[in-house]
């Protein structure tokens, strides 16, 4: 049974060639046609509607990828990924600058800071806005799911010192600097205190809480909160606001020892591929109406004063938005490298 040469179907070969050709053409056409802006931001800042508006106005296609902790941002940038816009928290900015991961902001961008509210002007980590333009600020407190627990939580003490044999039902974040800053507040120590005694106390505090902790992850944490997976959660204010829209049983608590005050900025990585588009984006987001929409989406307080006028009433009145006067706010700032390393080791031990 020798196959006749003519019957050897050429079809498969032609089909394959056509497929390759079509695929290649399609791919390259798609790639080269649209100008792109690569945004790497907090998962809770991925406002697709706002970005779509930007796409419409400028014709620049937005490609968004998200992270849920500053540590993830740092690791991704270090591994060479090239994004055009990132949203680092203030206390990580000095680190990013030192590692040459940020590029200086153009003056037109820095000028946008003129409109900022008093309490966010000239942040300690970058007073002249040379590398980072503040976007939102907020606090770190405790979120309580009142449908899952009747416990009256009023302090960090309550949050960290749990009864023995309790079933794991606490959610913690895996953003090291946040956790350590809160630990310091809970222990009434100064933030970034690298003394051996304080480090030991921090470690004991966290290890002591561990049996009651269900997850150490900021990834999707407020969805878990809204889905009744955790009873207590270390949380960032804006996320609690958003979670509360889905699940009214969630309450935000300002513990009596005080809260961490943080600031998130917009910055342009040194490896950015499209500086022009990045600048356009920052301009766009900082326009009062857009800033207000963005703020409403993320639940965080906008730095732009003009934006506050465009915010809907209920968010203006929300507890997450209004820090009670009698609660101490500890602004988080960057710790010196040895302390960061020590924190890293505490975290490593905790995760093992």
């Amino acid at each position, binding site marked *: 049974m020798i196959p006749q040469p003519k019957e050897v179907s050429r079809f498969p070969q032609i089909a394959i060639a056509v497929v390759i050709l079509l695929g290649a053409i399609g791919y390259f056409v798609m790639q080269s046609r649209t100008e792109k802006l690569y945004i790497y931001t907090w998962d809770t800042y991925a406002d697709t509607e706002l970005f779509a508006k930007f796409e419409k106005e400028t014709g620049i296609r937005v490609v968004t990828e998200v992270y849920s902790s500053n540590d993830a941002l*740092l690791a991704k940038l270090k591994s060479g990924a090239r994004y055009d816009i990132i949203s680092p928290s203030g206390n990580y900015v000095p680190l990013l600058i030192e590692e040459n991961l940020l590029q200086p902001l153009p003056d037109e961008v820095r000028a946008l800071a003129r409109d900022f509210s008093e309490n966010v002007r000239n942040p300690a980590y970058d007073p002249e806005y040379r590398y980072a333009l503040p976007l939102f600020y907020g606090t770190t407190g405790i979120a309580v799911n009142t449908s899952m627990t009747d416990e009256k939580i009023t302090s960090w003490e309550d949050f960290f010192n749990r009864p023995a044999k309790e079933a794991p039902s606490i959610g913690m974040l895996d953003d090291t600097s946040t956790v350590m800053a809160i630990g310091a507040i809970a222990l009434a120590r100064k933030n970034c205190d690298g003394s051996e005694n304080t480090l030991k106390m921090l470690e004991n505090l966290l290890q002591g809480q561990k049996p009651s902790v269900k997850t150490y*992850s900021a990834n999707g944490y407020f969805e878990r909160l809204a889905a009744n997976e955790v009873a207590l959660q270390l949380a960032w204010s804006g996320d609690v606001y958003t979670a509360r829209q889905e699940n009214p049983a969630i309450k935000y608590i300002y513990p009596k020892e005080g809260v961490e005050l943080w600031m998130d900025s917009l910055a342009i990585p040194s490896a950015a591929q499209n500086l022009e588009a990045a600048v356009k984006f920052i301009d766009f987001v900082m326009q009062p109406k857009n800033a207000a929409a963005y703020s409403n989406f993320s639940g965080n307080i906008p730095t732009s004063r003009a934006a506050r006028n465009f915010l809907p009433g209920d968010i203006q009145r929300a507890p997450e938005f209004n820090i009670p006067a009698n609660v101490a706010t500890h602004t988080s700032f960057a710790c010196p490298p040895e302390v960061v390393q020590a924190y*890293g080791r505490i975290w490593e031990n905790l995760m093992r």
Partner: protein
Amino acid sequence: MTLARPHKLLLPFFIIMGLFFVLPLGLGLIYSFLKAAPYGGVIWEFSWEGYKRFFFVPDLSGVPVFDTGYLEIIFSSVKLAVITTILCVFIGFPTAWYMATRPPKQRDLWIVLVTIPFWTNLLIRTYAWILILRNDGLANTILGKAGLIDAPLQLLYNEFAVTLGLVYSYLPFMILPIYATLERMDWRLIEASEDLYANKARTLWHIILPLCLPGILAGSVLVFIPAIGSFLAADMLGGSKQMMLGNLIERQFFSSRNWPFGAAISVVVMGTVLFGLMLIAKRGQGIKDALR
């Protein structure tokens, strides 16, 4: 008579594999002997710290102290992989037996049935268990509606879920080699055993299992090795409290920012796997048949 110049045909293959497979692995080996840069990456200085970290971890002030932490992780990882393998044998052997004792026409159907899940996306199959195990997932909903429980059971983010996920992922790898061995088995031996008044249990223990040993061993190898290096099951179902070696390695390249240590773990895992396989290659023709 034969095709000329096989070297020419093999050349593209060698080039691609050499460049994009061998070189990266080599780089990994090199990285395991370098120093870790503070925020990720490496410093090009020779150091044993990657390997030392298995036993010595810097304490809070930076001084390396003997610490069994990582050894414990390795141990529990191996333990979990062993449990997974054993469970796979318990579920896989009866299934393979059942398949092999069907009429020949049906057997093809069974093979297809067992193989399909194997080829579908592991990520999705692992994700599916979240749907089943979480607080308002399928299992809890059914149990709750049946009135068997008052509050949702914690089925997810613990060792139970990870074990379940691992067994699930690698079960077909156990079933198929055992089936292959059973297919080739000389069934007259079974009949002889039964004729000689042995009951089913004795036949099973003294005749069947020893005959199937190559298949069981092959399946165990095929389950144990991927289980040790697995990533998805512990990551999606373990809630960052369970870790297999795969997770430990991944963590070093991201949140822990210790690339040399991650590379060192990889070298050790690979070395162990290759060493084990070499042992099997020397000893087990039967196993190789089962793997075919």
